[in-house]
């Protein structure tokens, strides 16, 4: 299961970085979302991959770590807000700069 988790993260981060390096705001926003998905999954995995274990300390059975889940929740909420903001900002940049190039210059074609 670890290999599959690592592979998922690798694919997400690779696609995210590739898209962030595009020069148009829409792919950049998508790339940021993919990166934040990857980060959320990564945080979730830091509690180790266990299944069917209760998130309680002190029990005799092996337990799942509840803290990464709390961290991931915070990260998801912040990520949502930031994605919404960057979408609005990208739209405003499109309106004010006249095109969707991240530098606002556009390519003469």
């Amino acid at each position: 299961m670890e290999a599959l988790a690592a592979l998922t993260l690798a694919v997400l981060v690779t696609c995210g970085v590739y898209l962030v390096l595009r020069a148009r705001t829409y792919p950049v926003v998508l790339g940021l979302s993919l990166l934040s998905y990857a980060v959320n999954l990564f945080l979730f995995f830091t509690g180790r991959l266990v299944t069917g274990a209760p998130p309680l300390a002190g029990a005799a059975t092996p337990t799942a770590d509840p803290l990464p889940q709390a961290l991931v929740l915070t990260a998801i909420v912040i990520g949502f807000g930031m994605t919404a903001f960057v979408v609005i900002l990208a739209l405003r940049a499109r309106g004010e700069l006249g095109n969707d190039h991240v530098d606002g210059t556009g390519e003469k074609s």
Partner: protein
Amino acid sequence: MNHWLIAPLVLPLVAAMLILLLVGRRGVQRAVSIGATAGLLPIAILLMCFAGDGEFGVYRLGNWPAPFGIVLVLDRLTALMLLLTAVLALLVVLHAVNGDDRRGRDFHVLFQLQLLGINGAFLTGDLFNLFVFFEILLIASYGLALHGAGAERTRAGLHYVVLNLIGSSLFLIGVGILYAVTGTLNMADLAVKVAAAPPESAALLRASALLLLAVFGLKAALLPLHLWLPALYGHATAPVAALFAIMTKVGVYAILRTYTLIFPADGAAPDVGHWLLPLALLTLAVGAVGVLGSQRLRVLIAYLVVVSVGTLLAGIGLFNTGGISAALYYLPHTTLVSAGLFLLADLIARQRGIHGDNFVLGPPLAQPTRLGVLFFLGAVAAAGLPPLSGFIGKLLLLQAVTPAQAAWLWTIVLTGSLASLIALSRAGSRIFWKTEGDRAVAGQAPLPLFAPAALLLAMSVVMTLFAAPVTRYTEATAAQLLAPQHYIAAVLGVHP
């Protein structure tokens, strides 16, 4: 438990919510904003009196014991940064109420939330909580950076937002690695666990330490990550740019805290100790080139901020008492002087009509003497000429180096000062002396608009007059930072 510790967080938060409720009543909004910001000052002084004798204030939120709950920790460094923030914020908000706060919506709400984020980042003793406060101050800063609208601001703001979103992702990855290795996020507990980490996790810890350096370096505008700063600061509204003078220092603070406490230079992740000084000197050199090449006064001041970050991190990168003490003396000086210069540049730009702060032939100013004296004061302080505090800070830094490092550090710091001096002299003569045409129609700056800039620049004189007590305080702070076992004992100690 000392409940004053949480006051620097509660006050701006309550003020922000109040101002939001008072929508449409601008006078009351301004009064609340000024009142709350002014209230931070006595609180910061109180906390500094508490921390000044070397005690640690530990505030356990929800009264959970330390490694489990979130703690706020007050030490000398935190108290110094809180006081600096309070002084800066009060003068900036006094400038903003003269009309700049009307150029966009909800200036005061964002301003107070920004103060909440900055104060929280300085106070927190928990790494994930530091991330949360970073996000609060960043979200507020995104709004403030776009305050006043305009294509240039949007362009610079977009770069800033995207870069910082990537930075936040890296921050979370760094924090996640640390948590996976140590199972804790409390900074004091992390320091213990990282020092005792088994050798097989050394590679992960090094990766985490360097990831965090990249994140804090982005906030602080360390060399390869500094490119967002000149455009953003150069185009932001004057009070926003002045407030942002403290933003890079939040990154510097995080570097100082993390790499003295969690990853000390001789500890688990020695790379930062090797990387920080060369990177800082390169930042300084590149900033100096930018200062020389600037075509506008505010871009010039933004590059001076880059130079100051290089100087600060060069002091911290020495990782000895002298270096950190020098950096901590230089930090309030450079923050207040850069902020003062940003406000002054705004006053100058208003009196030059369409020429703004561009270095082109323009009309004479309406108040050449007053503004000229202030500009001279600010330039002397920023370039680091005697007798003002910039000189003292740089002198302390030059004295702190070992002979092996001296050749590089002396050369680059002194050349950087020379470059700043040349650029500021050129800017001053272009704006004040080489003028043509009639005196600008724009009116004279009234006293309430003029006073905050003057007071910010006068802080340099104050820091010069009281250099001895300030230096004693920063030396004690540096000693406290380099002996983190007391911090760890105070945070993890027996529950009172």
